[in-house]
């Protein structure tokens, strides 16, 4: 199988879906030139109408995506950084995330919002926050966050084909990661986790960049004779509770690794769910490994210290086994 980078796989998903379906188009700031390489080259192939550079107007661009979606198109709205969604928050939470329901099923919103999620480029608070937890809370928005080129391509295709609004999160820090991507057409269903590493001693749940943190920790733990199971959720909403609960039934120990501010985070959700539904299988308390509870600092050493680290995960595993 050909090996591709994470961004190349995402770019490929965009190009293939735009070829497949004339209703799919891309709109956002500088998507033609491509601030992120994921949209680069699409303008050359698809032209002005299908790759639209917008003014810097997140609220209107998000809303325009919604209006286009409810009138028959399948927009991909690229808003660049996760935090820029804050400017479009109303359109996502109040409109995209409710129109179908609010209007009694008269319409649907087949729309993908696409942004980079989380830290890693030492760009300070305004460009380094993870935002998935906000959108997971919304009842009518799907959220995905792939960690590999394979998952990135397969999930983006599913997101574009989904008849509901999907927030597709990608990670700048994973952009250059390479992995196998089949030449043949495939999709990855939204809502299915992937066990990235099997193990019987402890279940570690992660998504996006933290999958690698968890895998690195699992490698280190192997040397100690601890077999950690690393589940890459891939989809955050809906998320694959079943796979996680099955794993915990086997391991009796659970650690949620999540790049985000701790309170009301995805890690809180995973930990609460496991505590609720696998209580009698648990042999030790669930644990959360998240960002430290501070805004994202600029300095690379501070940024690194804020993010969940391999050492944090190992410490949590040691604690759960103690």
């Amino acid at each position: 199988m050909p090996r591709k980078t994470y961004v190349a796989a995402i770019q490929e998903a965009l190009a293939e879906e735009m070829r497949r379906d004339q209703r799919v188009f891309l709109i956002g700031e500088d998507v033609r030139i491509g601030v992120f390489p994921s949209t680069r080259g699409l303008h050359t192939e698809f032209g002005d109408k299908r790759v639209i550079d917008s003014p810097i107007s997140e609220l209107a661009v998000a809303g325009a995506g919604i209006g286009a979606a409810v009138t028959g198109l399948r927009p991909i709205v690229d808003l660049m950084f996760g935090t820029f969604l804050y400017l479009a928050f109303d359109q996502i939470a109040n409109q995209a995330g409710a129109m179908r329901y609010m209007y009694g099923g008269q319409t649907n919103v087949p729309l993908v919002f696409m942004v980079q999620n989380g830290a890693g480029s030492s760009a300070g608070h305004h460009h380094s926050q993870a935002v998935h937890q906000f959108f997971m809370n919304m009842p009518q928005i799907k959220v995905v966050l792939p960690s590999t080129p394979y998952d990135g391509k397969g999930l983006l295709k599913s997101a574009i084909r989904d008849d509901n609004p999907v927030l597709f999160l990608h990670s700048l820090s994973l952009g250059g990661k390479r992995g196998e991507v089949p030449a043949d057409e495939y999709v990855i269903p939204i809502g299915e986790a992937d066990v990235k590493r099997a193990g019987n001693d402890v279940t570690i749940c992660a998504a996006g960049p933290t999958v690698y943190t968890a895998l690195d920790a699992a490698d280190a733990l192997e040397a100690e004779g601890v077999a950690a199971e690393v589940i890459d959720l891939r989809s955050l909403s809906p998320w694959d509770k079943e796979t996680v609960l099955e794993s915990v039934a086997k391991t009796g120990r659970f650690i949620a690794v999540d790049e985000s501010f701790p309170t009301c985070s995805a890690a809180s959700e995973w930990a609460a769910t496991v505590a609720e539904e696998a209580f009698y299988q648990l042999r030790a308390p669930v644990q959360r490994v998240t960002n430290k509870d501070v805004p994202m600092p600029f300095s690379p050493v501070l940024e690194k210290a804020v993010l969940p680290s391999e050492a944090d995960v190992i410490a949590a595993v040691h604690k759960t086994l103690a």
Partner: protein
Amino acid sequence: MHHQDIPVDLALDIYTRVLRIRRFEEEVGRLFRQGQLPGFVHLYIGEEAVAAGVCAALTDEDTIISTHRGHGHVIAKGGDIKRMMAELFGKATGYCKGKGGSMHIADFEIGMLGAIGIVGGGIPIAVGAGLSAWYSGSDRVSLCFFGDGAANEGSFHESLNLASTLTLPVIFVCENNQYGEFTPAKNAMNINDIADRAIGYGIPGLVADGVDAFEMYRVTRAAVERARRGGGPTLIEAKTHRRGSHAEGEEAFLAGQTYRDEAETAAAQANDPLRLLHSYVSENGLLPAEQLEALDSDITQFVAEAAEAARNSPDPEIESLFEDLWL
């Protein structure tokens, strides 16, 4: 006075739309006062000429987006009074099966893409509907109603600019009814005409008399033609008057406080869009007096029946909570 350019059929059509809105809203006001309606209700009385004139210039394919004060837009676009009334009661037979309510009526069949309870929240969505038409090469036009208050939201600015840069077929109709809740429009902006903001986007901005349904029809038609020709968006400011409360029952909110200019209110009363149209229709003999009366009583009765039917409709089943979530 006779409007040469408004054929009899059209004049009667517009008159009927205005009348239907008025009688509907009057009934809704009564129902609210009687405690029959849940939630908040914002009436369109005094502003009917805007929706009626504007929507008369649209085809069934053209789409509209509306606001918290949206009943008039639905009716003007050809919506079903019974289903709207049922929705106001929160019933299973309503437009949105009771999930939307007064501030969230939609009828996608007739191009009414929905009322939005967030001030300014519908404007970008209308830009998207216009983008859709432009993208597909359709000659559909997207039209958006919003208030003077909404014109101070960031969404207004971003949306008009976006529609302008892409030359989209979008018509922005600002219903300047002089108030946003209890705040006079003139306190919330330092300009006389919201239409002047069009200058900032390089699009035409027109002021129209929102009490004159025919003028609303004319300016909208010109904007529609321009949009269909690929000429891009237009901003139309309709000067109009909100006759009654911001929201029904506001006397309780106000607790004796006042915010209205009495003279202005009196002038607005005197300049009633329904009365003006009625005079026009009868003075020009478009319809004999008895038919005019019959029309009114038919509508009044129809609305009363709609209320009765809505009242007697079933509440939504609790199971319906989990329907209409995903497609």
